């Protein structure tokens, strides 16, 4: 059984201008020890999806339909008290902007020790020692001195490691890392990715890595899921997603990224992310697609398997397969 299995997740936000479907019909699953890269532009719904898993969607947003089955329980229908036992404990989040996620007026030692007191029921002194161990486990040198420092005294990379340490405090089964390398220097980012990869191998925790950087995905992830305007357009194993993507959006994404290993003709993705207000009833990529068909503007494509670990939501791809078959 998968560690987590999401089916048909749809999240809606009510605004003055009308309902906005930030996430529509997302399906994916994760096995223990797997690292999934959740890729997409700003506004694609990746963070909303992650927050839904943690049941952190608050009004004016709400989960409209769908199920998120984690270790046998559907998180969508679980009562808040049960979710709280899972949040931070079994499923942990490493948020964007680590420095702002840390409390600026409390030492990081107290922040991390508090987590051990809360989740493991430890006494403060024992929790402090565990905190030091946790910082060392994420590669922070001179950990006992760092425990007494404040967030502003730490570099960006160190803050990120602290957040990861805090997320790991309760030995979660699922770790969600939201843009963990954005804003970090390349070499620091590389080390953070090493850390995450290592974690996946050591602890058997699954990781959802939210990013817009395909290079990051290539270095760390086993599988990739690509989102566009709230919809999941393609999922698959890393190899096939980066070498032979089927969905036009994934293909466009790859062509729009400059590389240091070869010269490519940069092709920006045409158009812009469509407004989610009064979203099209059909495929939300139709407006930007190079070869839309008539059916694309009216009917939403469903995610269907085209390979052993490769699913695409695209009418054109399905039509081609039907022709070939």
């Amino acid at each position, binding site marked *: 059984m998968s560690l987590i299995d999401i089916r048909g997740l749809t999240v809606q936000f009510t605004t003055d201008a009308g309902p906005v479907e930030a996430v529509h019909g997302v399906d994916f699953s994760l096995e223990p020890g797997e690292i999934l890269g959740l890729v997409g*532009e*700003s506004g694609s719904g990746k963070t909303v999806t992650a927050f839904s898993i943690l049941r952190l969607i608050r009004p004016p947003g709400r989960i409209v339909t769908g199920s998120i089955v984690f270790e046998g329980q559907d998180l969508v229908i679980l009562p808040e008290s049960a979710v709280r036992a899972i949040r931070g404990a079994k499923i942990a989040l490493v948020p964007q902007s680590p420095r702002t996620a840390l409390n600026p007026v409390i030492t990081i030692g107290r922040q991390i020790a508090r987590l051990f007191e809360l989740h493991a029921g430890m006494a403060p002194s024992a929790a402090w020692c565990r905190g030091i161990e946790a910082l060392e486990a994420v590669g922070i040198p001179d950990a006992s001195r760092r425990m007494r420092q404040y967030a502003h005294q730490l*570099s*960006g990379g160190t803050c990120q490691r602290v957040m990861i340490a805090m997320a790991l405090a309760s030995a979660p089964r699922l770790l969600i890392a939201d843009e963990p390398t954005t804003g970090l*220097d*390349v*070499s*620091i*980012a*590389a080390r953070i*990715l090493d850390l995450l990869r290592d974690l996946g191998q050591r602890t058997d925790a699954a990781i959802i890595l939210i990013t*817009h*950087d*395909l*290079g*990051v*995905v*290539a*270095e760390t992830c086993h599988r990739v899921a690509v989102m566009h305007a709230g919809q999941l357009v393609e999922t698959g194993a*890393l*190899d096939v997603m*980066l*070498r032979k993507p089927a969905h036009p959006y994934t293909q466009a*994404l*790859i062509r*729009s*990224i*400059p*590389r*240091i*290993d070869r010269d490519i003709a*940069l*092709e*920006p*993705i045409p158009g812009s992310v469509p407004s989610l207000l009064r979203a099209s009833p059909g495929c939300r990529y139709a407006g930007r697609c190079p070869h839309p068909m008539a059916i694309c503007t009216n009917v939403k494509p469903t995610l269907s398997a085209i390979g052993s670990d490769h699913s695409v939501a695209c009418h054109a791809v399905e039509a081609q397969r039907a022709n070939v078959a």
Partner: protein
Amino acid sequence: MRTLLEVEDLAKHFRVGGLAAITERLRGIPTEVRAVDGISFRIAAGETLGLVGESGCGKSTVARCLLRLVEPTAGAIRLEGIKVTELGRRALRHLRRDMQMVFQDPTAALNPRHSVKRMIEEPLRLHTELLPAQRRERVHGVLAAVGLGAELADRYPHELSGGQKQRVNIARAIVSHPRFVVLDEPTSALDVSLRSRLILLLEALRDSLGLTYLFISHDIASVRYLAHRVAVMYLGVIVEIAETKVLFSNPLHPYTRALLSAVPIPEPGMRRQRISLSGEVPSLTNLSPGCRLRARCPFATAKCAEPVQLREITPGHWAACHLIDTRGANLTTPT
């Protein structure tokens, strides 16, 4: 090609303030932050020089020194022969017509209370004698050049998306037809899918307006695309400078090699040999003589304690490292 910009021994030292610093100075402990410590380079007209390096290397300080937004401590900057570093206040203001900058954070760089039109028009009001109608025409022209519709002229920054804001920044920088533009991390605050669009825009503008760029970025792949030559900075000095192709295919300095090996490539299974630098970036106040990378370099030897200069290893390819011989041999074994 004629040289447009010439920088010679540029240095910027910041004095640390506060009581602790004063007592340290009395005890003879150095308290200057040497953000930029003697760099020299040239940019030819129409060329794009890329400047890469990680946080704290001094590249943003270099940008600000070039425009004298921050006063250099030492060194000379010449724009087509005019000594920028020696200009008086008024002359400097007039020179701003020719040297412009695109700032990193598109939101912070735009005045929240000014409309797009007003901001783009301002350089024209300050530096030209154009009539309002002519100014309006120029503004519309430059908006079109950066790919924004004329209807956005009356908008305010908060009504624009990140990509649009950055284009407004670019429009403001080019409206006075400058010769030289410093691009300070122009894509860092943008979504990765918008970056390529902006890079292509910068390329198109460069070609159509004949602009010369200093392209500062930590997005090394973008620099590879846009720049003709690249300089790598570390702790306030340039450690390597070469033509783009040469730098990426044959990096010589250990820092450059470490940097390039850390850039993720969107190709599965490309686990390259990573050259890691040990430790963290040291503080800029207590720099020992000799190579600044010494404490972290996997190839360091005793010779590295001696001061090191940029040497031309092969024509056009300069590096500041004791361990590269004049034939440009690459180091392969870490000590």
